[in-house]
């Protein structure tokens, strides 16, 4: 275990980086192939190998360059794009449209996503039942498997789930990187409390209606996944809300503010994950001995997790999603991944390596299925 080392770089030599990548290489190979690689389908084999190598190159580069955020963002954004593509492809294959019908709801055939989880809690406690028309255990995106994945990721990564696991977050993360400079410079960070209000509202209304009201009326990502068949004024209004919120909070505001506004202002699951930051052992620490209060970290934080007061105290707030942007930006290397209980500036390499391994393994395996599907579709076009 390393002692306090001032201003240390996270860069590693080529050989050391390879060594650190080896366990990820083995684990992702076993998990992606199921331990029994099947190379009978050429397009499938190329897709699997491309995804597998791509993932491991990213992880290798995280060690080799000592940088996190940009490399994470590549995978995070690719995950969001490929998952939407995969979902749409699945729906078009099954239903010939992105829209779902009343029959799909009646037959409980809706794929489940983690954003529904906040609305399930009260009804599960009071009615002993699940209020989402999906499959409990069988088929694509079952309720059980998604809840297990989210629970584990939230326990281990805290709000890190929002930057290392959420398959929608890549959308506004991507749009927030499009411009070099912010157009809207001053954003009141009081809005970061808004997801708690949304959480309260959707939890209560969903319990009373026994229907997931966020999915029915608010979710911006319906615009890039599936939405109710437009059959009347109500369904047309819903489609309008989905598209407007997607356009406003996922595209326009992130481009103008360079912040992840959907995640920071609306997402009810983000509110729960904020609380899970209290449980996770991993955090981001500011070494006050190295910090020169330039506040560049406050400017670049996409989740409103850092204020001047937080920097002065040497702690990030509970809104931190551990994306690594502040860490990569800090000119004095004063910010690092840390473990709770361990003072800032101590065991920084161990903390970073442990956090990166856990978080990267989660997103690598979680995203691989949809990335392979997209690559396979592409290879099928050319082979």
């Amino acid at each position, binding site marked *: 275990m390393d002692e306090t080392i001032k201003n240390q770089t996270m860069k590693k030599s080529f050989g050391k980086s390879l060594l650190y990548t080896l366990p990820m290489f083995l684990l992702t190979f076993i998990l992606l192939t199921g331990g029994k690689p099947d190379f009978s389908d050429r397009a499938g084999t190329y897709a699997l190998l491309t995804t597998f190598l791509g993932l491991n190159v990213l992880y290798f580069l995280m060690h080799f360059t000592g940088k996190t955020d940009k490399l994470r963002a590549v995978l995070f954004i690719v995950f969001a794009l490929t998952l939407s593509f995969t979902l749409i492809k699945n729906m078009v294959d099954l239903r010939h449209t992105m829209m779902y019908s009343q029959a799909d709801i009646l037959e409980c055939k809706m794929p489940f996503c983690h954003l529904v989880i906040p609305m399930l809690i009260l*009804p599960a406690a009071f009615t002993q*039942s699940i209020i989402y028309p999906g499959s409990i255990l069988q088929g694509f995106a079952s309720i059980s498997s998604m809840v*297990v994945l989210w629970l584990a990721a939230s*326990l281990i990564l805290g709000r890190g789930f929002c930057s290392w696991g959420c398959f929608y977050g890549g959308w506004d993360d991507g749009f927030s990187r499009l411009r070099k400079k912010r157009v809207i410079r001053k954003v009141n960070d009081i809005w970061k409390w808004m997801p708690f209000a949304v959480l309260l509202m959707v939890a209560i209304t969903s319990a009373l209606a*026994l229907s997931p009201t966020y999915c029915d009326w608010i979710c911006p990502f319906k615009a890039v996944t599936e939405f109710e068949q437009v059959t009347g004024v109500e369904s047309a209004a819903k489609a309008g809300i989905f598209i407007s919120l997607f356009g406003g909070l996922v595209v326009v505001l992130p481009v103008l503010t360079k912040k992840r506004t959907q995640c920071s202002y609306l997402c009810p699951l983000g509110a729960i994950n904020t609380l899970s930051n209290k449980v996770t*052992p991993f955090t981001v620490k500011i070494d006050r001995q190295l910090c020169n209060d330039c506040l560049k970290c406050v400017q670049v934080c996409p989740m409103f997790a850092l204020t001047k007061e937080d920097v002065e105290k040497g702690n990030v707030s509970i809104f931190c999603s551990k994306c690594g942007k502040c860490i990569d930006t800090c000119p004095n290397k004063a910010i690092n991944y840390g*473990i709770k209980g361990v003072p800032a500036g101590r065991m920084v390499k161990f903390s970073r390596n442990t956090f990166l391994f856990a978080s990267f393994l989660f997103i690598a395996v979680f995203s691989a299925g949809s990335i392979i599907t997209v690559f396979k579709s592409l290879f099928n076009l050319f082979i």
Partner: protein
Amino acid sequence: MNKIKMTTGIIWALVCLFVMIILYFSLGNFSAGLAKLPFMKLNPNLTGGEIVQQRVMDNCTLMIRQPVFDGFLGERRKGFVQIDWKGNIPGKIRDTIDYNMDSSPDFIIGIETAENTANLEALNPVVRNIEISTRTSFGWVARVNIINEK
């Protein structure tokens, strides 16, 4: 005290790392375990309730489900009864339904499947209107709104 905090933090981090490594290997078992918990079943408002009567007909089977009045806290005043037709659905459906099994018919439902039109003849004052009538992958489903008599 600081050493205890530090050691606890490191142990907790290593436990989390271990959980992450076994997570995907054991996802099937964890999910199956979760699915066995008492609250992991779909609400009757979604499934339509349990099937309580079945009538085998020439081309299809008529299934009448238990009326659903489930609310967040107790039963609601308004609910529905769901009727499923499974199999080859004829162009015209006309069935008399006694959903509460009191030997007196509650309503007659008529459906023209080609035109997707439905009509309801209420024989019991608690029967209100047709909420849903739609084709499904297995046949046809109709939900008829009713008032809770309790």
